[in-house]
Structures are given as C-alpha cells and as structure tokens.
C-alpha cells in the first residue's frame, strides 16, 4: 500500500504541472510531449509545496488528502479548459515538416534514450534505498521537514539568538531558518502520503526533477530547430554529468531544483527571443518566479536573466550601451549600498569585493580536473570560441542567450573569486 501511495505522491504533481503547461504549448510545437511533460513535471513538483502552503494559510493542517484533492481539482480544471478548446487550435507556426530519421540515427537515438533511462533507474534505486545523507540536507532542509511533518504545521524556525530570547517556546532553530519552505514541504508531502517518516522515499522527487529537466531540455532544443539525434546527444550529456547525478543520488539539497528552474527559464527565454512566441515568455517568467521560492539565492539567479530580457529587442550597439550602464550600476550599488542591508538572506557585508586567489585554482580544478562534468569543461573550450566566431553569435538571435549566460557566469565568478564565499571554510 505504501508503494501505491508513494507512486500517487509522485504522479499527482507531475499530472498537475503537465495539465497546466499543456494549456500553454501550441499543438504543432516540435517535441511537444517532451516539453509538456518535462516542464510540467518540474512545475508540478515545485508548485505542490506552494499549494500546501496556501492551504495551510487558510488554517488547515498539513494534510495529504486535502492537498491531493486540491491538486486533483486543479488538474481537472486544466483538463476541462483544454477540452473546451482553449489553445487546441493554437499553432506555433514553427512546425517543421516531419523528417524520418535514417535507421542508423534512429538506432543511436534509441541507445542514448536507453542510457538515460538506465541512469534514471540506477539513481532512483539508490535514492529509494539510501537514508538522508548530505550535509546541507541535515543542516537546514530536512530539519524543517521533520518538525513540520511531526506537527502537521509550519512551526516557525528562527535564528539562534531569537530562539534564545523566546526560550525556544513554540519555535525551532537550525543553520538557515529563513530559507524558503518549498524543499522541506516537498519532503513533508512525500511522507504525508504514507503517514510515516521515511528518509529514503521522501527524496524520490529528486529523480523526477532530473527526468523533467532532461525532457524539458530536449524539448527546448527541438523547438530551437536542433536535429533529434543532436538534441538526444546533448540531453544525454546533460543527464550523465557526475555532479548533477550526485545531486540526485545523494538527494536532499535544493540546488538541483534551482538549477532546473533556472535552466528552464533560460531556455524558454532564448526560444522566446528567437521565435517571439508569447507562451515561451510566460514559461520563462514562470520558472524565473519559482527560483526565489526554492532558495534565497534564487533571486539573484532570476535577476541574472533580466539584462537578457532587456536587450531582447534592441540593436547590438544600443544593447551594448545598456549592458555597460547596467554593469556600472551594479558596481555602484555594490559600493554604495549600506553594509548591513540584507538582500535575499545575505548582507552586503558578505559581498564586499576582495580577490580570493586560492579560489582560482579550485575553480579550474572543478571544471577541468575533477570528475564533475565528464568532458564538458573541454567541450566548453571548443564551443565558446566557436560560438563567438559563429556568424550571428552576437546579433539578435543569440544576443539574449549570450547576455544571460555572461551575466550568470559573471555573477558566479564574482561570488567565488571576489567575495568571502571563495574562502576555504572548515567544512
């Protein structure tokens, strides 16, 4: 019975998310199934905890049946809207004539799919067996899940000094009490299904997250007119990278959800800029809005997409001026904002620029020496110059994507090369 209930807890969010994403995606979109189910699975897994929070805000305890009924009602509503014809006749105008793959390509495509499925089964088995292990998971994610599951309520978590002031009455504390509730609530949802605290099965949504990311990635590549075999190969590259796999095998961190939401927002943003399709803009906004709900730092990742959206319809020269101005504004804000100001859980004090030379070697090692990315680091060395030299790389078609990636990578490098986050810590 527990297996059935766990399956329901997995499938219900996937159906909920897919039913609503299905309304967005036009009928003739290439790889529509992958787009709908991939984005839908991710959206559903991320929106179910928000649904739990909304129900809890009305005074209900955290309850599987109430949440499940609400999810079923919302899924039925989306299905009803679909059946009434909303969007069914809508076309993307992007449909390319279907071209049958040669047999050899089809065989290779099937092998790649088989390898992806094998990876998902391997990781799923590991997750279903292993109790919670990762450091951050026991430091500030599952702590909340454990308490909220036991109390069937979102008991507040407060900083240590507040906990001491109130004598721990009615409050709990952990390392990051102000982190968003999405990930702990997802674990609560899985445990509420069976009514038992299960440190293994509660992490199965991490496997769904990877599967959803892969399907969404493939779908977006196909929308961008990438051939099916090439899209399958790059999806396999993405889903086989050891660091991403480890985030699933040792489930419990929020980072893979943030990465998936950011990736979906970025891909949708690129396809929106290229195709000028409104539904892609909606998808990009949806996933960008979910980023801060996953981790406080998600706000910065979501904001890193803003310059790209801003230059989307500009000429190259005009865009360069705007980006230069934005860069100067960012430096000014960094220097002028009061040090005690806290943004998304981080004080400006933490962002005071100071070069961290020891972090440079670390960054080089994680990209090109350690077994984190397979050959991705080396692929970048080839793809980056090729991409910049490619005709049209910096024209309107790729300007947005280039801007978004430059902003995100720039922010990442600034964080780890020029702030205290790049310093070696005891743990």
């Amino acid at each position, binding site marked *: 019975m527990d297996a059935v209930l766990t399956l329901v807890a997995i499938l219900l969010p996937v159906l909920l998310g897919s039913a609503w994403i299905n309304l967005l995606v036009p009928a003739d979109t290439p790889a529509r199934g992958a787009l709908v189910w991939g984005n839908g699975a991710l959206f559903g897994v991320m929106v179910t905890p928000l649904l739990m929070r909304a129900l809890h805000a009305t005074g209900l305890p955290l309850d599987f049946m109430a949440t499940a009924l609400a999810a079923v009602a919302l899924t039925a509503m989306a299905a009803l809207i679909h059946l009434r014809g909303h969007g069914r006749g809508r076309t993307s105008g992007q449909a390319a004539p279907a071209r049958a793959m040669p047999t050899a390509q089809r065989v290779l495509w099937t092998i790649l799919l088989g390898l992806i499925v094998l*990876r998902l089964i391997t990781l799923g088995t590991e997750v279903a067996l292993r109790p919670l*292990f990762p450091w951050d998971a026991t430091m500030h994610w*599952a702590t909340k899940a454990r308490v909220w599951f036991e109390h069937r309520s979102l008991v507040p978590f407060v900083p240590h000094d507040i906990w001491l002031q109130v004598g721990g009455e009615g409050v709990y504390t952990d390392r990051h009490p102000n982190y968003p509730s999405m990930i702990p609530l997802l674990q609560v949802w899985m445990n509420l299904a069976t009514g038992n605290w299960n440190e293994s099965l509660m992490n199965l949504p991490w496997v769904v997250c990877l599967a959803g990311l892969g399907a969404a990635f493939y779908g977006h590549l196909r929308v961008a007119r990438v051939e099916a075999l090439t899209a399958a190969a790059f999806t396999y590259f993405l889903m086989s990278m050891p660091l991403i796999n480890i985030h699933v*095998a040792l489930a419990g961190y929020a980072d893979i959800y943030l990465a998936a939401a950011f990736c979906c927002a970025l891909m949708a943003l690129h396809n929106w800029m290229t195709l000028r399709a409104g539904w892609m803009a909606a998808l990009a906004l949806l996933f960008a809005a979910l980023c801060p709900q996953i981790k406080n730092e998600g706000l910065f990742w979501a904001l890193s997409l803003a310059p790209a959206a801003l230059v989307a319809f500009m000429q190259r020269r005009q865009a360069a001026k705007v980006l230069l101005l934005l860069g100067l504004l960012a430096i000014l804000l960094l220097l002028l904002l009061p040090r005690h100001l806290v943004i998304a859980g981080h004080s400006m004090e933490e962002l005071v620029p100071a070069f961290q030379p020891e972090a440079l070697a670390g960054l080089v090692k994680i990209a090109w020496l350690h077994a984190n990315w397979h050959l991705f680091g080396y692929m970048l060395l080839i793809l980056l110059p090729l991409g910049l030299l490619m005709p049209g790389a910096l024209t309107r078609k790729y300007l947005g994507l280039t801007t978004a990636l430059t902003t995100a990578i720039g922010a990442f490098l600034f964080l780890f090369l020029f702030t205290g986050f790049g310093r070696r810590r005891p*743990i």
Partner: protein
Amino acid sequence: MIFLICWLLLDGFWQYRLLRQVADTHRQFAGKETTEKLAAGPDSRFYHLAQRAQQHVDGEKSRVFVSSSDDYHGLRTAYYLYPHNPYYRVRGDELPHPEHLRTGDYILIVHPARTQFRRQLGIVQTQWGHVPVDSLFSEDSGTLLRVK
C-alpha cells in the same frame, strides 16, 4: 561523433561505478525500515546517541543544547534529535551563555568537545563559566546532562 564516443566511454565507467554503489547500498539498506537504516548507516553512532538521549528527555518541548567542537559530530547528532527542540550552532559557541540555560534543560555533550563535565563537582564547565548539572548517562560518543 568522436566526442560522443569518448563521452560514452567515460560515462561507461561512471555508470559501472554507480551500479556497484547501488549494489553496496542494496546490501546495506534493502528491506530495512528508516530507523533500521539509520542504525546501520554511516552516522549510526550519532543516531544511537540521539535515540538514547531522547529516551531520557521529558516531552518534545524540552530544550536540548548540543555541545561539540566537531561540527560534523554535533550537527548530525542535533539532526537526529528533531522533532525535539535541539539547539546547535555550526561554527559557533559550543553552548550559549549560562543566563540562557534554565533548570530542566538538557545538555548533550558530543565528543570531542571543549565543554567538560566534572562529575565529582556536579558541574559542566563551559567557556562562560560553570553550570550545576545531573548526569543522565555517559557513553563513548557523548554525555547527557540535565541542568539543576
């Protein structure tokens, strides 16, 4: 195509390692309930310590201060104390100032720790001074005390 073949080769080794890891994990945890898994897992000694401490702690609302100079030991033990109300600061003071402690609070010293229990004197020596305590149990991994 050459790149794909190289990636496939490299990933073949990774898949093999993953399969071996799954086999190990299966041997270690298959067929076990969560409590049995935790008791058999890599943190079993912290789990056992927390379980034993919970048997001595009155009610879930009781405050348990975890004291350790090793962040890994302290944090893992504190985690297994939830849904009780543990207090543990990663990279922070081992214990708060005694003015924040009150009669009936519990102090769980997880070794290694700078906080020391002096059995003959019935006190726990912290960086801030000493606090009178009763000893509830002591084992290799740690000691549970109740503030008098």
